[in-house]
């Protein structure tokens, strides 16, 4: 993985930068020794590692503001970090950049149930929010599988999704407000407990901006009342096409399940061997469809889903009859990644999205690619919204396998774009898909996005080397040649 060259001037000034940070964040908040910095050397895309220049863990908004201001004034780069669970290298350190860890911002500031919202600091974990309101019957809807560990600030930066986002939306659809600090140290509040923004929706653009535009220091999330009940159906199919057809038909029937997940044959075998969830081992594809809501509705819709599944040739149909059984159906799906970890030294988790109607074709072509690259691939995915998570099995200690895995991954993502899909559905671009951005976007598209970055971070100091294959200087991007009066008045209908 190619990263921008380190700036020798910054490396030479390391001691000075460390002491400047110590003047802002006292005590143990600045970590400059190798042993202390080691835990920060990678995120969950652990094939790539890099030690940061120094780690700083601020505790107040004012400290964040002063750090960023200092970095802006002195041309020092900054990598924001939440819990470090990014799967795309979003929070991977950069050698000549400080790593700004937000883990000490871990307090829930306010819970306001009549207005159905909570105001929290960005280091609070995703699950921590739901846990705090659980006894009152509420929860925070987006549920990435990493929810025990990942931070809400990281969720905002990645616009994370989860199993239930088919019905309840991604992070961006569940936010009411944020507070953020700009690279120049200014603190800006967007939104609040009210709905919708005044002026440009800058909160919308911050969500999913992968730490490249500002540092989030507070988040107001929307809380939902927990559904009265939830039940799951386990459906085995003799063909992948049958399963994909069932997914399309459920949606065409006007049913939006709480979650609709698909696993291919290999994923089913791995998961079953690992947790024994009772999955049908003869199935070519497995669907888990979860319906949630009022009990009468759930019962009614389950009947309809089962009828559709039988019509599409399901060979196994099991409806959960207890909460315990529902959780068991999910246990295999939730353990799919570690289960795959049991059969391979390493795996790479991809994240493209494709139109649902192309699912079968995409799976077939992925197998073809698997033969070409001589590496196995296992598929687990959010079928309801066409978000694929192919897992490529390889051995990172074998340089040739790592290279082939990277190439295989890139081919799969190109395939996603080719069939009308996108490079990433929820994990972000980071460094992982950075060099593929040109597959989905033209240079004009990318230049426009980089110009937007310039509005927030004119010196490209925030999270450098991520998302954009090549960052062009703001002055160069801003240049505009105007041909005064050279273009004749166009021949456009006038009224």
């Amino acid at each position, binding site marked *: 993985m190619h990263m921008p060259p380190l700036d020798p001037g910054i490396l030479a000034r390391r001691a000075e930068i460390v002491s400047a940070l110590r003047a802002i964040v006292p005590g143990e908040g600045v970590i400059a020794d190798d042993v202390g910095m080691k835990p920060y050397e990678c995120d969950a895309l652990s094939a790539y590692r890099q030690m940061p220049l120094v780690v700083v863990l601020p505790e107040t908004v004012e400290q964040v503001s002063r750090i960023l201001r200092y970095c802006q004034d002195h041309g020092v780069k900054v990598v924001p970090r939440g819990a470090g669970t990014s799967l795309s290298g979003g929070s991977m350190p950069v050698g000549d950049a400080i790593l700004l860890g937000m883990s000490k911002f871990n307090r829930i500031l306010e819970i306001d*149930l009549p207005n159905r919202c909570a105001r929290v600091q960005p280091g609070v974990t995703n699950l921590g929010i739901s846990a705090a309101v659980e006894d009152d*019957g509420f929860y925070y809807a987006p549920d990435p599988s990493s929810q025990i560990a990942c931070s809400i600030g990281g969720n905002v930066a990645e*616009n994370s999704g989860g199993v239930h986002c*088919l019905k309840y*939306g991604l992070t961006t*659809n569940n936010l009411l407000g944020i507070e953020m600090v*700009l690279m120049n140290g200014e603190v800006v*509040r*967007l939104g*609040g*407990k*009210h*709905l*919708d923004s*005044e*002026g*440009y929706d*800058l909160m*919308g653009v911050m*969500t999913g*901006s992968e730490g490249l535009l500002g540092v989030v220091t507070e988040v107001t999330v929307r809380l939902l009342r*927990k559904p009265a009940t939830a039940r799951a159906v386990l459906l085995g199919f003799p063909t992948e096409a049958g399963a994909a057809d069932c997914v*399309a*038909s459920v949606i*065409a029937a*006007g049913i*939006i399940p709480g979650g609709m997940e698909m696993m291919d044959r290999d994923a089913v075998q791995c998961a079953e061997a690992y947790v024994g969830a009772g999955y049908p081992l003869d199935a070519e594809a497995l669907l888990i469809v979860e319906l949630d*809501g*009022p009990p*009468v*509705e759930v019962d*009614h*819709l389950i009947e309809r889903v089962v009828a559709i599944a039988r019509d599409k040739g399901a060979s196994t149909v099991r409806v959960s009859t207890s909460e315990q059984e529902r959780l068991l159906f999910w246990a295999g799906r939730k353990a799919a990644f570690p289960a795959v970890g049991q059969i391979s030294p390493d795996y790479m988790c991809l994240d493209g*999205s494709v*139109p*649902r109607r192309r699912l079968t074709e995409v799976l077939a072509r992925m197998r073809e690619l698997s033969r070409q690259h001589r590496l196995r691939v296992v598929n687990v995915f959010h079928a309801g919204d*066409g*978000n694929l998570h192919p897992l490529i099995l390889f051995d990172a200690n074998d340089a040739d396998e790592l290279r082939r895995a990277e190439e295989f991954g890139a081919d799969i993502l190109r395939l996603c774009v080719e069939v*009308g*899909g996108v490079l990433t*559905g*929820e994990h*972000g*671009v980071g460094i992982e*898909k950075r060099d593929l951005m040109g597959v989905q976007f033209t240079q004009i598209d990318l230049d*426009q*996005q980089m110009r*937007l970055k310039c*509005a*927030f971070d004119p010196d490209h100091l925030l999270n450098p080397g991520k998302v954009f294959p090549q960052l062009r200087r703001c002055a160069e991007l801003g240049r505009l040649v*105007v041909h005064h*009066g*050279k*273009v004749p*008045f*166009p021949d*456009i*209908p*006038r*009224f």
Partner: protein
Amino acid sequence: MATVLRPRDAEELRRTVEWALNDGVPLAIEGRGSKRNYGPPSRSDHVVSLAAIEGVVEYQPEELVIAVKAGTPLREIEALLAQRRQMLAFEPPDLGAILGGAKGEGSLAGALMCNLAGPRRIAAGAARDHFLGFQGVNGRAERFKAGGRMVKNVTGYDLSKLMAGSLGTLAALDEVTVKIVPAPERVHTLLLVGLDDEAAIAALCAAMGSPHEVSGAAHLPATLAGRSGIDLVAQQGGAVTAIRVEGVAPSVEARLKALRAQFAPTAPAMEELHTMRSRQFWEEVRDATLVGDPASLLWRISCPPTEGPAVVAAIRQRRLDTEVQYDWSGGLIWLSLAPGDPATDDAAHVAVRGALMECGGHATLVRAPEAVRARVPVFQPRPPALAALSRRVKESFDPKGIFGTR
């Protein structure tokens, strides 16, 4: 009168912008012109209408997305979706009537660019939440795209969000893709009759906090309820507080029953509207047609739901000639004020925005004579750091300011 340019395709649109850029001519971008009177009056002599760039590009019902050319009439899209029992979840309001025009004239892109949403906003999100991707021309006369046709997509910055609500000041869009949802089989509404504002908003917030998946929560004080076109509402002779539940038949019935039981102890009386009358009622709420007379100034205020009555009370300390409609469980207030002399109109904006100082929120002057809209800040003024950032964002799309500011 401004000259209206009507490009017929994306390339003509791009050439129009190129001409404007080279000659330094400011443009006002509009969809089909239904909201020409929304916002401060345009100072541009040239209007670019997208009305001729129309048509459905791609509609795959089972993918839950539709891509259309920007000027496609909203009415046509809604009719097409209805044929397949689908709809736009954000329930875009039709402001035609209250802005003094005809109904049903707007385009989808226009609705998106204003980021307006109807009663279902509280359950399903705003226009911006359903806006997945676009193609358009920036102020450098370059055609660019962002987002895509997928519901799940985090590739690159989410520029669709930025376009939603930008009122055509960042780019001229020629194609948009939005997410759609299945239309509910049943739409029922529980009416609580005779509650005062505070009791009503408390009831609505309780309903929103219940597990009954409420998708509309509005309160019409007695005067407004009396003007409803639905007899059952108009004849109550008191305030009407409305709670909507939608979905499959058995579920709607069960939830309505549970809500009835929940409010039986507090509501003086209850009624129900079933599917047809329910739809008609929520259209009245959505389009704010019952608030004030056509000559009144009309404000649209967003605040935390529980604060709604206090915000209204604070405004009434200064102005008594107001009528209000509460939507979004108290978080959206439509407020009318009788027109006055310039000094009174200017003072009104201080009164309305002052009432939001503590609880937070924003207020838009939706309807007012042109002279008032030219003088009073129509949109919520922003604090300095945010205003400066917004200006830089604007310049990143439109360095020469040819798309104007709002």
